[in-house]
Each structure stands twice: as structure tokens, then as C-alpha cells.
């Protein structure tokens, strides 16, 4: 009985470890890679990445196909089956097996990293040219790919509540005990098209709507190629908790210039939509941003942000410089120069940094080392034998 079980396990293991399985998985991975890369041209880098590479299932023409993560999982299983065989650890196969261990480590590590990674943008504005004036300090980062709905009320917006994008599903009801009303999301747009309502529009009576939505209407827009440029928007209805009667129907979109407000029971609530924010354990303010050019040309040779980093421990900020290819590392966080807007009329000088927290940063480095060493070993073992067979004609 036990013997049979072991035999059957061994045969399954042998099947999983066979190159046939891996070859098949690799072939499919190549197909995914080609189509995923080509589609970047049409739907943008971020969207294609989400569709092909950062998912388990790829939906295409109504079919569910295995996406990159599933394929990598299969490959991982194959590798585990292979390296758990004794035969894999014979001396002449050591390099080969090391490579496989390295790949396994790399794949597992990357998965760990993507699950643990925190990433966002820090938009730093320079307040004024005069150095005495302090620039505003940012203590949070923004996610350009997700929006959040914030409700505020009271003096200095003392009360506020945030609803994350995953809660903003059409039909869902947003509520908190402190609020005397519920918010029902009617429609949500990842990228929104804003148009003025015309007289001929069949959009129903403007009296059905409140505020901005009386004059403007929102509709779905094709996602921008550059996913960060998407502007999320939504229609929602505010319903009184007690009477269950609608108070009004509103339209809202990200960074709206006019703030929408709800008046209920003598209280005024302000409601805004903005890129999703994540608090940082420190604050950053911009001192100066500069672009260097190669002399006599319009080619930039470098970008540089001079920043002040504020920590709870410090009363005053620590000065630091962030340059292209030279990020600032602070605790678990790394700040990189990502983009900028130069001061023009009506806009302030802005430097955009990327903040990343990743505890598994070293995994790819170690995995890379193992893979490279293993492959080198393998080549050293194999190559002399391969080159020896020479037949002089």
C-alpha cells in the first residue's frame, strides 16, 4: 500500500519534473510575452501589464486563459519536482540544479515582493523662489492608478472619512455610523469624459441632479495609454438614513476644481475624489529642483531635487539630494526622481518623486547571484566536453 503510494508519487513527480511540462509552459509564456508587449502599444504599459503579467487569468474574447502568474506557478511546481529528486544533486548536475533553485527563489521572491511592496508618487511643489519660505510638507504618497472618495465636515474638516476605490462599485452603499446618510454609487468610471449638458440631450431632467451634475455630464472614456493620466469619476446618490429618501444625485471626478457639498440636518459635508493616499512615516518638502543640460544642446544631462526630510524625531528637516540614478534611501523607503513640471505662468515648480517600500529588495540580487553562479558552473562542466569532439577533416 505504502509502496504503491510512493511509487505513484514518484511517477507524478517524474511527470512534473519532465522537460515536456516546462517546455509547454515556456511556450505559452512566450506567447503571452509577445502579445502582452504588442498590446502595450494600444492599451498602454500599465493596462497591458495588469492584463497579461500581473494576473492569474487572462480574459480574451470571453475565454479564460492562463496568464503569466499561473504559468510561473506551473514552472515553480516543475522546478520543485525536479530539484527534489536525488539525481539532481549529483556533482556534474550541481550547476544545473543551482540555476533551478535560483529561478525558484527569484520567482517566489518576486511574488513576495509584489505582495509586500508599497509604491506611490510624491508630488512636491516649490512654494516660492525665496528660500525663507517653507515649501509644503508632504506626509503621504499618491497612487495614480486608484481613486478614493473623501467626505469631510466640521471646522477645519475635523471629521473625514475615506472610501477606497475597491468600495466604489456601482450599486454598493457607502456608510459610516457618524453619517446621517448613505451614499449609493450609481456609476464609476476609471477614466471619465466630461461634457456640458446640452438642451437636446436626452439626459433626463436637470432637476434630478444636484450641483455640478446639473450642467455637466460624465461618460466613460477609453483608458489613456499612460495610465497615470486617467481621471476617475462617479455618479452617486445620497439617501437619508431614516426616511430612506434620496437627497440628491451628484457627479464627481478626481481633483475637481469645484468642491461638491451636501447639506443635511444643518451640517455641510464636503465630498471630493482624489488619487488614493497612503501615509508615509516621514514628511518631505522641496527646496529646489533643477535640470542640467549638456552644454550647447537641449538634451538634459540630469535632474536634481533638493529636499528636506522631516521625521518625528527631528524638529527641523534633514537636507538631502535626489538625482537621476541616485535615489535617497531612508529607513525601508527609497525615493526616486520620476518627473517634474517646470514653473510656468500659473503653475509652480513641481518635482515628482516615487516612493517605494520593499522589504525584499535583496531577493532578486541574491537570486541573480545564484543563477549566474550555477549557470557558470554548468558551462564550465559542459563546455570542455562539448568543444572536445573535434574531427579534423
Amino acid at each position, binding site marked *: 500500500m505504502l509502496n504503491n503510494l510512493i511509487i505513484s508519487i514518484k511517477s507524478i513527480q517524474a511527470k512534473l519534473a519532465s522537460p515536456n511540462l516546462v517546455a509547454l509552459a515556456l511556450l505559452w509564456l*512566450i506567447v503571452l510575452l509577445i502579445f502582452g508587449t504588442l498590446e502595450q502599444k494600444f492599451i498602454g504599459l500599465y493596462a497591458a501589464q495588469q492584463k497579461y503579467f500581473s494576473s492569474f487569468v487572462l480574459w480574451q474574447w470571453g475565454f479564460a486563459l492562463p496568464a503569466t502568474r499561473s504559468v510561473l506557478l506551473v514552472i515553480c511546481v516543475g522546478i520543485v519536482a525536479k530539484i527534489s529528486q536525488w539525481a539532481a544533486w549529483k556533482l556534474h548536475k550541481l550547476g544545473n540544479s543551482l540555476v533551478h533553485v535560483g529561478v525558484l527563489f527569484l520567482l517566489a521572491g518576486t511574488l513576495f515582493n509584489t505582495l509586500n511592496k508599497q509604491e506611490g508618487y510624491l508630488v512636491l511643489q516649490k512654494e516660492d523662489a525665496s528660500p525663507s519660505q517653507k515649501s509644503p510638507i508632504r506626509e503621504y504618497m499618491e497612487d495614480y492608478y486608484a481613486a478614493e472618495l473623501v467626505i469631510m465636515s466640521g471646522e477645519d474638516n475635523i471629521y473625514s472619512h475615506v472610501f477606497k476605490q475597491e468600495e466604489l462599485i456601482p450599486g454598493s452603499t457607502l456608510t459610516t455610523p457618524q453619517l446621517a446618510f448613505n451614499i449609493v454609487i450609481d456609476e464609476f468610471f476609471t477614466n471619465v469624459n466630461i461634457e456640458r449638458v446640452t438642451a437636446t440631450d436626452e439626459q433626463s431632467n436637470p432637476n434630478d441632479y444636484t450641483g455640478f451634475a446639473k450642467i455637466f455630464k460624465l461618460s466613460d472614456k477609453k483608458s489613456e495609454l499612460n495610465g497615470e493620466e486617467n481621471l476617475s469619476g462617479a455618479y452617486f446618490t445620497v439617501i437619508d438614513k431614516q426616511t430612506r429618501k434620496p437627497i440628491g444625485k451628484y457627479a464627481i471626478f478626481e481633483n475637481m476644481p469645484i468642491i461638491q457639498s451636501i447639506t443635511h440636518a444643518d451640517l455641510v459635508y464636503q465630498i471630493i475624489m482624489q488619487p488614493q493616499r497612503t501615509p508615509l512615516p516621514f514628511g518631505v518638502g522641496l527646496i529646489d529642483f533643477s535640470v542640467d543640460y549638456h552644454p550647447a544642446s537641449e538634451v538634459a544631462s540630469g535632474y536634481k531635487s533638493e529636499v528636506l526630510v522631516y521625521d518625528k524625531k527631528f524638529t527641523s528637516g534633514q537636507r538631502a539630494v535626489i538625482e537621476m540614478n541616485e535615489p535617497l534611501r531612508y529607513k525601508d523607503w527609497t525615493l526616486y526622481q520620476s518627473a517634474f513640471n517646470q514653473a510656468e505662468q500659473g503653475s509652480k515648480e513641481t518635482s515628482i518623486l516615487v516612493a517605494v517600500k520593499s522589504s525584499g529588495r535583496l531577493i532578486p540580487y541574491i537570486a541573480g547571484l545564484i543563477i*549566474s553562479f550555477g549557470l557558470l558552473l554548468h558551462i564550465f562542466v559542459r563546455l570542455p566536453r562539448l568543444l572536445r569532439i573535434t574531427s579534423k577533416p
Partner: protein
Amino acid sequence: MTINIMTRNKINLSIYHNLYSRFNPLGICVIGLMLLGMSIISVASHADEIDADALDALDELNALNALEIRQLDYSQFALLPVQHQGRIKPLDSFARIHLKIFSHRNKLGELDAIEWLAEVILSPEKSYNRPLFKIRNLHGILQLPPKEDNLYSFYQISIALGKQQQLVEELRKSDYSQLTLAQQELVDLSYNSLVFFDISRSLSLFTPIFNIEDARLASYLEITENSPFNYLDAIKLNNRLNQFIEETLRSKQDSRAKDPSSPADFTATEIAALAFANLLGTLNNDKKSFLLKVLPGQWSSSWTSPWENIDLGDGSPDIARLFALWQELLEDYTNGDNEKWVTTSELLLGETLALYDSAASASPQWRLKLELFYNNARLFLIGMLLYMLAALVAIASPLIERIGKRIGKRIGKQKHGLINDYKIGNLILAFIGGGIITQVMGIVIRMIILNRPPVSNFHESLLFVMVIIVAVGYGLELVKRNYLGTTIACTSGIILSLLGFYYQGQGDSMQMLIAVLNTNYWLATHVIVITMGYAAAIVTSILAHSYLAKYVLHQHKWHKRHKLASGLGRGQAEYLYNYMLGGSLIALFLMLLGTLLGGIWADQSWGRFWGWDPKENGALLIILWLILMLHARITSSVTPHVFAAGLVALNIVVVLSWFGVNLLNVGLHSYGFIDNNALLGLFGFIGLEVAYIAMSLGYGASCELQSSRTGGRA
């Protein structure tokens, strides 16, 4: 088995056998044809650019006839430093870059680039009439008569553009990448004509175009009449001139106020003054001319053009000396006085360098000389010609050897022959080695001039990959002496050289790097390793081509030879197979290491190890393909020749990753320079490779089927 054949046939057969055994990978013909086809397709659409070299050769012949036109010695003038696109370069490079941009040529008729530039800045009026601008698709829009060389003068172009001003303005505002080819050409042309005009006005402040003929005005301005002077002198008279005009106008007004019937006409003196003021005003427009930055910056690293210097008020006694020398140079050029011209340009070079030296504290003269040498020597062209010679000798070797034997017989050296296999091999090796040396020299000079690692743009990656492949081929030939290495070295050397000429960039192949790439450390590690990976993959693929060619050609006797294990067939097939396998392992190692290094760079610079960017995916595609092949090899269903076919296809994967992703134009790596016509070449190449695989596999399979049938019967 004995076959009766006539003696004559025997000889013929021996030639065949000779050729056959030595062109071990008989694929040389097949590969050569294929790669040639690819290069023709990729280049045919722009044949005129490759033709530039051919045209140059013709020009050189013409130039021999026109020798007397050349009176001036430009060797010192060509060395004059100018700051352009981020670095100090000799005027010769500046001239070549702009001539290439305007006319798509390296020479203009009998004029060298530097001679042309001298004319543009020292005698602009003459240059405005010289056919210069290349027109491809704009004859209709600009209403220009078609010409054989399609070159049109600045005057022609500016008149034609003037008529289409509105269209040009509109196009310049819109997104360049969305325009049609003709529209892009129109935008480029209008921009280029502005650049040309800017350069042509660079020295207009030294040209003596002012001349006061009126004696009264001359005495008022305290100058001698009828002696021409230039802007620099004229501007000193500006105050007096304005005073004179003001006085004139006031007296006119006064006299009119007193007596409205007084004549309103201006006197000849007054008209002369107004004309002078007008000309001065017109010349003031030239102040915008800032491209020819020949004056070292004294307090910063930014150099200035003469006009810019005046405009910024950046003068100093040193600069004044340079001004005087430029003015003298202008006079010498106009007078055609070679002796003085050479002396002045030498002086000017010395003074400019002295000023630059004191500012930059590094001796730049040898760098300028080195660059001039690089411009003139055309090392990569020489290298390619040497590879061609090697290929010619290799192809003709059976014939050469036979001739050698004949001669040897006559003079009595029968045994080894006058020219034997080994000696021919040495000759080929010498040619290839010479090619490698010249091209490595070219790469090293580029590194010194640009002060950065050898690979930083598409053009350079072509050169680097080429040199590595050729060197591998050389080594292989040195060891094995069976023409396999020669095949690898010559085919890739010639084809990649041609592609290198084609992708020299728009005029300037030595541009500065954008900020992300502006780091020598990562350029020297990640980029070099990846490029070496490309080279290894291509070598592997060429080996696979040979293997497959051999497989097809031997198919009929393949099995028999295998069983007999007799030298030729099996041994060669086996070592080709082993080399191929070893090559794929090395390619995999380099690609993996390079990609991991790239990931580390990305992690350091952008905070992410991997971002599914097209170029990253391209590198990953090569890796995955190699891994797939190596795994498929050990499955039972994949035979050696299918494995070889997969490695032939590796070429497609490499080309897609190296050239193809640039066509997508998305993501962080889309800095490579590629135009739309490359798409045609790319598809042509892929088509040829696919056809090669399909044909050889198909033919092989049919032969195998046949032999197995006959085998069954037996």
C-alpha cells in the same frame, strides 16, 4: 562500388569535393544570400543613403578634375573647436553633421564638408545659391522641378517654403509622430532651413557691408568715406547716427511747423543716414545666430557664437583677439590668399585652444586631432572592405588552390603546391584580423572622444556586436581551419557594417546621452553584457544555420554516414551540434546576467526590478527562447535538426528584441533610433528566416521518409 568516369569528370568532381569539404558549412551561400536579401530589403527603401559612399567615390574622381578649384588648405581650419550638442568638436565634425542632415551626403559635389561649411560662413551669399537641401516627397507641395540629385538651393527652398508658410506653421504645432512621412519631411525641411540660415549668418558681423559714400555724413560720423566697414565698427557709430537722424527729423518738423510749404524731401546725406540705420537694423536680426559656438566661455562651460557674445556682452581682450582673427580669416578667404589663410587659421586655432585650455585645464588639441582622424579615416568602411576581401578569397579558394597547383607543377614544387590550403587560410585570417584591428580602433577612438563606454546608442550596439562576432569567427577559424569561422566573421561583419552605415543617426552618431543613460557605470556593465549576449546568440544562430544546411545537403547519405561513423559527415555534424549547444549556453548566461544587471539598474534608478517594459520583455524573450530550446532538446520529441531549427529562429527573436521593440516606441527604453522603413526590412528578414527553416525541415523530412522507405524495403 566502382564507377567508370572519365578523367575530366574526375577533376571536376575533385573540385566539387574540395569545395564541399572545405565549405564545411556549405550554408555560406545560403546564409550569404539570405543576409544579403535582408540587407537589400532594409536598405533598398533608402538606397540613396547607402549610396552616399558610392557617390563619394564618384565625387572624388570629379574632384581630381576640379583640383584647381581648391586653393585653400583647410587642415587647420577643420581643427577649429566648436561647441555643439554637448561637446567640443572640430569644425570638420560640425560640417559633416550638418551637411549630412541637409543633403544626406558626406560631400557636396566637389566640395568636402569642411569646404562647404567655410563657404557657408565665410561667403554666405554664394552658398545660398548652391544646391544643398535634399527633397524626397515634397516636389508637389513645394512646386519644385524634379532633379536627378534632388538637391535644391537655400534660395529655392526658402521661396517655396514661404508660399506654404501657413501649412508649415500648422504642422509644426501638431504632434510630430502623428504626421505622414511627407509632412514630417516638410517640418524637418523648414527647421533645417532655419538652422542653415542661422549658421550662415554666424560671421556676418565681420563682413564689411557698410560703406558711406556721402562725404557729409562721413565727416559727421568722423569716418573716411568710401571705405567699407563691418557691423562691429558700425555699432560704434550708432549713437552719432541716431543723433544725426533725430536732429534731421527735428529740423524737418521745425521747418514744417514754421513753413508748411517747405520741401519734405530728404537730402542725399539724410537718405544715406537712413539707409545706414536700416542696414544696421537688418543686421541686428542676425543676433539670433547662435549655433556656431566657436568662442570659449570664459566664466562658464558654455561657449558662445560671435553674435551671441556681442549680445551677452561677454567680451574680453582675449575674445577681442579672436574676433580680430576671425575677421582676418574672412578677409583671407575672400582674397583667396592661401598662405595668409593657413597662418591665420593656425593662429586662430592656437588662440582658441589657449583660451579653452585656461578655462578647462585639459589639453584638448589631441582630441580634436583624433576626431579629425576618425572623420577622415573611415575605419569601419575599411574594416568592411577587408571582410569582403576575406570572403572573396574564401569563395575563390578552390580555384586559387588549383591555379597554385598548376603553377607548382610547372615550376616543380609538386608535393605541397605553391599555394596551398593553409596559406590561403592565413591570407583570409590576415584580412579578417586587419578588419578587426581597424574596427576596434574605431570603437576605441569613439570611446575616447565621447568619454564613455563603447555602447550607448543603437549605432554603437551594431558596431560592438559586429566586432565581437567577427572576433569569435576569427578565433574559430584560427583553431579549426575549416572556413566555419570565416563564414561567421564575413557574413556578419559585412551585413552589420552595412546596417551600421545605415543607422548612423541623423547626421550625428556621437550624440550626448539623456539623463537616465548618463551613467558610465551601468552603461559599462549592463549594456555591454547584454550586447555580448546578442552577439553570442547570433553566433549560435549562424552555427545552427550551418548545421541545418549541412543536414539538408547530406540528408540523402546522412544515415549511412552516421552508421559508418566515417569522418566527414558525422564528425562535423556532431561538432557543429556541440558548438551550437555550447553557444546557446553562453548566450543564455550572458543574456541572463545582462538582464539581471539591468534589473538592478532599474531597481537603483526607478525603484523597480522589473517593469514589463518592451525592451525588458525583448531581452526576456531571448532568454525564454533559449531556455525553451534547451529544455525541448532533452524531450524525446525534438530531434537535433529541430533543435537547430529552433536556434535558427533565435535570430528572429534577437532581431525582434534588438530592433523590433524600438518600433513599438513605448516605455523607458525607446531611445533607440529606428525609422518606419526598418519595419519592411524586419519583416523581410523574418520571412527569409522562416522560409529557410520551413524549406530545410520540409526537405529533410521528405528525404528521411524516402530513406526510411527504402530502408524498409531492404
